[in-house]
């Protein structure tokens, strides 16, 4: 028995092949160019599955069966060498760089692998390990800075949606989000946030569905940027495609021996609030809106709450601003905590001081645990991979968490030489609890950033809630009325009024590939992406009233009535089915001429159903969240049943001449269900060419590779569901049936949309690949767009569906790779991505020069205005005279324009870029990524209100005379203002000129709320530069050397430490992350009540055996 155990251990440690071994060889693999060692090269016994991988020093050791004598040495990007064994036992090999392999093979549209050099369009690849390093709830976030031309905007919302754009906004009002394709199967990336939420109203960010993709399962990502690259995907890929290849079962490889491979990957992440993205409060003044109440200085409520016949001096509990009395530790006043009997300070006066524990103490350190176990294997008959991931995150806010369970099974079976069957099943259970409210209403962050008292100690609120489980707020309507007015106890909000959601998702396919001839195979596949989602919102009895339930609009989120308790649920089911059939051919016509092609068809059916139901008028039984617990009759549910179908037929032809010139052409015909019958079929072509000129220059010392490429493509697209026939809205009956004309005028004459793009590129690498670049330039025009044009409501409608518009996106993208240093054990790689996109609205429709995309609180609108970039921010501006701001000579306040159509900025960055450095030394690897977004504007509603309510430190300082700015204006002679100000005067002087052109000298009083904020300043004052420079990630990884593990069944150990977003190096937007927004979508450039960003630190352990 003991022997048997030993035998087993032996088998695990050195593999089964030992038993058959006859002799052992050793050696070293080096590079032919610079003699550096090559770790990770494959050494394989020809005609067997026996092999080894070179270690960090390029060394290998291999045992050869008796009957074998040919060894294959291979490495990515190198020419493969076969060596016939002689007598010796040491075989050192030098591999030379392969021109063919150098460029590698990439997965293109429809999952067709192509040699990268043959492509006439731009693609960029990211390896899976670069994605999975950062443990984020949404893998898309990890792409930021790693691909040129991609714009990733990660919100700070827990599990929130990430806005991802490639080459700018192309569609005026449609989906500009990139299409995700996993192993050839398109994946739904819907954002189910309400329309109100996206405009800054109340709601939650439920994330985008692509976040169900498990980063640990990703082998590689290939980004198809232009229309030529995506033409075969048809309509839906107009905004670009991110192709994801998942991991498959493999045979021997690096740190991987034969047999079942087991990988364990465990990580823990902890986040810390980045304080530069959270307010810095003034600490001088407390509750109030000014001095108009009662008592000393008119800052107080004077009430006899305890009925002892003597009035007490109360803090103005009902006021959610900090423009009250100056703090004074010697002053004892009755505060919010003196109201309720359960409070230790009940009917006790306490010192009037700034809170010891400010809002920053409200946040938890978010922790994330991710554990993945993967089993895989492969043989000549097939392969499989089974993986399970458990994800758990405790959020930044109290009572918030995200959980995911993900199972993936990928399997391939070679039925015979000709027939291969493959399948994939991926199930995800995604659960969210207590997502943060976004936008203006009922969002704790809006209180922290806009409406609050600096004297409120958050931890005391915490204790009061947990001691009583009641809504004991700081914001009593009045000390005598124990009832909240605007803000509940924040902990009450988090623990009682929480949302929850759950999504069950299945994604999978089954396919057959039949090789009819050597050059022809037929491929058929059925794939399904389906999920059901339940979103539930709660409002506990005893909360303040807020918009809740079902209002107007398709998703019932508009004009909701105020309700102080309630329950709402959204039931969403989604399914997409794709039926694909493809014939692939690949034939060398002559020695120098190769013809490749695809002929195929795709049938797609998409169903999206949503049912929204809610209680009305409150809950009958407190704490019971169900529809039947409604006090009032249930409001009309909102029901949506949408079905979309597209039948596509396509073909592509590629001609290759001598590995020198390649020509590609594609043609696709789509038949879309959403267009009028006579316009529902449309064709679109693409043509691409590439010329590998380096093949003409033989034996160049410096030029390793060079290629120019050029392409032109058109892509057509149908409408969204139900855009052709007019409909009516049924509204709640008022004694008799009641309906209204739907606000959108439909259009039964819609044409398909069309995007036309031209793209050119140059790709070169030098000095044996030590330096290389890929330059792309493009011009895309999206025309005939199907848009709901916002129209003057004097037409009777809000929107009209039309075909219109021409948006132009021109851009340059540059990807630069360099290896500045490379030694025996040391290597330094740099990858730089840079992209600039010029976006312009060329035209809309006749007589219309502006398309309003969104309208926000503050009178701010986001627009597509002819002649301007997409997404200009408009609002009120200063009045200028000779370029200087005009100040009213009487009030000293800035004059504002009366019109609100002044362009104040635009949401698009001037350019984006990233620089990634990777340093490797023996088994150590260090990398860091700097991510830059230059330019663009963002409007801050937080500053708009928060400066008005006196929260920020900018609202309390010593003025030019050395006096507190909030002190009153004091004249030398109150009856003769020409004598000027007394040296004790408060207030400040706005920089600018009076209407007559003279320098402004009038002092503004800052004694009352509003002065610094929205009341007295135009919108322009709150538009900030959205530039940021971030240290996006630093990671350090250590691979335990194989030599250490020699005697163990574990074959690989990698330990890594990663810091994600550790440092915002530069930003202009005060107290918030310029990336934080409301969520994904076309409406960006508006900052309101966002969570602060966190610096996340991860420890990761990966074991393979």
């Amino acid at each position, binding site marked *: 028995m003991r022997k048997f155990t030993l035998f087993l251990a032996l088998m695990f440690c050195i593999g089964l092949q030992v038993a058959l071994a006859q002799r052992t060889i050793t050696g070293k693999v080096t590079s032919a160019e610079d003699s550096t060692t090559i770790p990770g090269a494959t050494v394989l016994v020809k005609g067997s599955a026996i092999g080894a991988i070179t270690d960090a020093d390029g060394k290998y050791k291999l045992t050869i069966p008796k009957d074998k004598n040919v060894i294959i040495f291979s490495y990515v990007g190198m020419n493969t060498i076969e060596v016939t064994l002689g007598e010796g036992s040491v075989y050192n090999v030098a591999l030379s760089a392969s021109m063919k392999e150098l460029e590698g093979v990439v997965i293109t549209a429809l999952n067709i692998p192509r040699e990268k050099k043959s492509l006439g369009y731009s693609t960029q690849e990211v390896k899976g390990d670069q994605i999975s390093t950062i443990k984020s709830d949404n893998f898309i976030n990890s792409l930021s800075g790693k691909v040129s031309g991609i714009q990733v905007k990660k919100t700070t919302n827990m599990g929130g949606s990430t806005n991802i754009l490639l080459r700018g906004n192309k569609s005026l009002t449609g989906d500009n989000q990139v299409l995700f394709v996993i192993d050839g199967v398109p994946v739904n990336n819907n954002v189910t946030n309400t329309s109100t939420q996206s405009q800054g109203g109340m709601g939650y960010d439920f994330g985008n569905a692509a976040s169900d993709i498990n980063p640990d399962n990703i082998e590689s990502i290939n980004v198809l940027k232009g229309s030529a690259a995506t033409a075969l995907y048809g309509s839906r890929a107009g905004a670009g495609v991110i192709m994801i290849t998942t991991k498959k079962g493999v045979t021997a490889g690096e740190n991987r021996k034969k047999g079942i491979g087991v990988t364990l990957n465990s990580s823990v992440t902890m986040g810390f609030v980045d304080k530069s993205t959270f307010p810095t409060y003034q600490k001088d003044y407390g509750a109030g809106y000014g001095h108009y109440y009662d008592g000393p200085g008119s800052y107080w409520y004077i009430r006899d709450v305890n009925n002892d016949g003597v009035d007490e001096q109360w803090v103005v509990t009902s006021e959610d601003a900090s423009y009250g009395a100056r703090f004074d530790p010697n002053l004892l006043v009755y505060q919010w905590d003196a109201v309720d009997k359960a409070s230790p300070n009940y009917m006790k006066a306490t010192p009037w001081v700034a809170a010891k524990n400010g809002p920053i103490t409200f946040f938890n350190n978010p922790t994330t645990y991710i554990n993945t176990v993967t089993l895989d294997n492969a043989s000549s008959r097939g392969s499989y991979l089974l993986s399970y991931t458990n994800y758990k995150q405790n959020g930044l806010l109290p009572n918030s968490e995200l959980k995911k369970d993900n199972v993936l099974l990928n399997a391939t079976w070679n039925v015979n030489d000709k027939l291969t069957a493959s399948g994939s099943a991926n199930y995800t259970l995604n659960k969210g609890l207590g997502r943060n409210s976004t936008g203006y209403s009922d969002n704790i962050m809006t209180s922290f950033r806009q409406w609050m008292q600096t004297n409120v100690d958050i931890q005391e609120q915490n204790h009061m809630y947990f001691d009583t489980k009641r809504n004991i707020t700081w914001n009593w309507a009045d000390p005598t009325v124990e009832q909240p007015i605007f803000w509940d106890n924040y902990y009450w909000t988090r623990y009682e009024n929480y949302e929850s959601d759950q999504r069950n998702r299945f994604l999978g396919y089954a396919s057959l590939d039949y090789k009819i001839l050597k050059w022809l195979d037929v491929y058929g596949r059925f794939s399904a992406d389906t999920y059901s989602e339940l979103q539930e919102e709660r409002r506990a009895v005893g909360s303040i009233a807020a918009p809740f339930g079902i209002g107007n609009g398709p998703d019932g989120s508009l004009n909701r009535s*105020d309700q102080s308790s309630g329950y709402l649920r959204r039931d969403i089911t989604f399914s997409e089915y794709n039926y694909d059939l493809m014939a692939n051919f690949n034939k060398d016509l002559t020695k120098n001429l190769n013809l490749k092609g695809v002929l195929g068809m795709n049938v797609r059916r998409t169903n999206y159903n949503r049912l929204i139901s809610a209680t*009305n008028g409150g809950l009958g039984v407190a704490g019971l969240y169900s529809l039947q617990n409604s006090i009032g009759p249930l409001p009309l549910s909102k029901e949506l049943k949408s079905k979309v179908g597209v039948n596509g037929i396509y073909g592509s032809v590629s001609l290759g001449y001598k590995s020198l010139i390649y020509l590609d052409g594609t043609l696709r015909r789509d038949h879309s269900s959403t267009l009028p*019958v006579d316009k529902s079929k449309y064709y679109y072509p693409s043509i691409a060419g590439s010329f590998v000129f380096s093949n003409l220059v033989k034996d160049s010392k410096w030029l390793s590779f060079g290629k120019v490429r050029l392409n032109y493509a058109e892509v057509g697209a149908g409408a969204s569901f139900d855009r052709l026939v007019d409909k009516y809205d049924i509204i709640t009956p008022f004694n*008799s049936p009641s309906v209204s004309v739907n606000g959108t005028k439909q259009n039964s004459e819609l044409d398909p949309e069309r995007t036309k793009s031209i793209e050119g590129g140059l790709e070169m690498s030098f000095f044996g690949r030590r330096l290389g670049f890929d330059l792309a330039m493009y011009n895309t025009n999206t025309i005939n767009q199907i848009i709901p044009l*916002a129209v003057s409501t*004097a*037409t009777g409608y809000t929107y009209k569906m039309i075909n219109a518009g021409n948006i132009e996106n021109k851009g340059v993208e540059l990807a630069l790779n360099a290896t500045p240093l490379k030694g025996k054990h040391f290597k330094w790689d740099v990858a730089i991505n840079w992209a600039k996109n010029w976006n312009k609205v060329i035209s809309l429709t006749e007589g219309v020069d502006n398309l309003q995309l969104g309208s926000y609180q503050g009178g701010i609108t986001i627009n597509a205005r002819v002649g301007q970039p997409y997404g200009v921010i408009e609002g009120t501006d200063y009045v200028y005279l000779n370029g200087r701001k005009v100040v009213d000579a009487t009030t000293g306040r800035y004059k504002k324009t009366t019109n609100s159509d002044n362009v104040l900025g635009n949401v698009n960055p001037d350019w984006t870029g990233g620089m990634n450095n990777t340093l490797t030394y023996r088994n150590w690897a260090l990398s860091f990524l700097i991510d830059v977004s230059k330019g663009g504007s963002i409007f801050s509603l937080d500053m708009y209100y928060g400066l008005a309510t006196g929260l920020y430190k900018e609202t309390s300082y010593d003025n030019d005379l050395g006096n507190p700015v909030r002190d009153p204006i004091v004249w030398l002679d109150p009856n003769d203002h020409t004598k000027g100000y007394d040296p004790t005067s408060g207030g400040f002087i706005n920089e600018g000129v009076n209407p007559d052109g003279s320098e402004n000298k009038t002092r503004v009083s800052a004694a009352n709320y509003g002065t610094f904020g929205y009341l007295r300043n135009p919108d322009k004052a709150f538009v900030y530069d959205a530039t940021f420079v971030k240290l996006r990630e630093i990671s350090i990884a250590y691979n335990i050397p194989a030599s250490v593990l020699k005697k163990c069944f574990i074959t690989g150990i990698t330990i890594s430490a990663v810091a994600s977003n550790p440092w915002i190096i530069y930003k202009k937007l005060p107290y918030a992350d310029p990336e934080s927004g409301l969520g994904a979508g076309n409406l960006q450039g508006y900052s309101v009540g966002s969570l602060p960003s966190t610096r996340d630190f991860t420890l990761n352990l990966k074991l393979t055996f």
Partner: protein
Amino acid sequence: MKKIVVFLITILIFSACTKLEDLNKNVTDPTAVAGEALFTGAQKNLFDQMINTNVNNNIFRLFAQYWTETTYTDESNYDLVTRTIPDNHWDILYRDVLKDLDESGKIIKATAYPADGSAAGKANRLACVEILTIYTYSVLVETFGNVPYSKALDINNLAPKYDDGLTIYKDLITRLNTAIASIDPGAENLGDADNMYHGDMAQWLKFANSLKLRMALLLADLDAGYAGPLVKDAAANVIASNDDNAKIVYLGAQPNTNPIYNDLVASGRHDFVPTSVIVDAMNTLNDPRRQFYFTLVDTSSTATPALVYYGGVYGASNDFTAFSHVANAIQVPTFEGTIFDWSETEFLLAEAAARGFEVTGSAEEHYNTAIRASITYWGGTTADADTYLANPAVAYATATGDYKQKIGTQMWIALYNRGFEAWTEWRKFDWPVLVAPPDALTALPLRYTYPIEEQTLNGANYHAAAAAIGGDDVTTKLFWDKH
């Protein structure tokens, strides 16, 4: 290979058998409805907009200085931009009222009614649609001045031009005459689809004539010769009792509760208090309606309560608990919403008489009836009214000032809770004297500025209209506002 052929055929069959475009069918919303249902919706929307006190939609109670805000005093200080209030007023009236009425009219016209099948029944229905349409346009003109009219409600014209306010107004009166003439009180009607009069066409006639009276009088300063005959014509059959009031009775459950309930009670907010402007005025007159308008508040700092009616300072920040509140009866969910009443009609008749237009009865008689109508409507007794009218400061003969001051002041008191009408009558009479608060962004508004949306969506016509009326400012006097 065989299997693949089967697979291929399956797909071909699947795609061949379905007519793809059939998928694009909306199976949850109607594509055809009854005109009556559209009327019901439009009428409710109109009432909600005229009655509510949501700071995003309707701030006319502030303009009339009946109420003021406690903490967030932006709207009391005439900030119309932050909450895009003109946009909301405009959107609701055009899109949610006029468009639905327009569609309702079109459908009713095209409907073949089976029962008593008379043309008169259809004409009655259409008259109701027309009268509410005219009413709504009159509100738009009185709010903004020039507005889209002849080219409005046409989705094929995305940039509707603005018509001259006076031209619109006169056309509305012409249309009103036609509508009045088309009514046959004995014939079929909208029945319960009409929540205002439940199809009582005799009352619709009175409402239409009262509206005509009001519209004509608004033009009296501009063109008395035009207004006089219209007033005479209308005065013969106007609202003659509180039963004739143009009102709807709200229901107990949201969203069909009185919007005031939503804004003041359901919201849980303490945003408004009555102003010292109206409270002091009514205190001086010892007005019997105070108990129906306001609550009492204890202003004593001692244990002995001193319950008084005490109003907040208009436009200033006000401590909610320190002042009288809006009376509870006004805040109940089922409180009726009114857009025209007997008292208002009688004041208009008083004005007509005072102006020397040909109406039955003297200015004083109508003035007295108006005050009685108001007091009894709110719950006072005839004795209360008699006492009040006996007050020399109230009595028509002895009250201060000319007829504009007398009628203007009393009408303002009577129109409490009817912000829009009060603001319009104030602009016409220039009484009572209202003063802009010290922190106001502008002088007292004489109109709404045009919606921001119109600047961005209908720019050229917006700029032309702004120039035509003398600038898009709140202080621009509208065409009828001659004093």
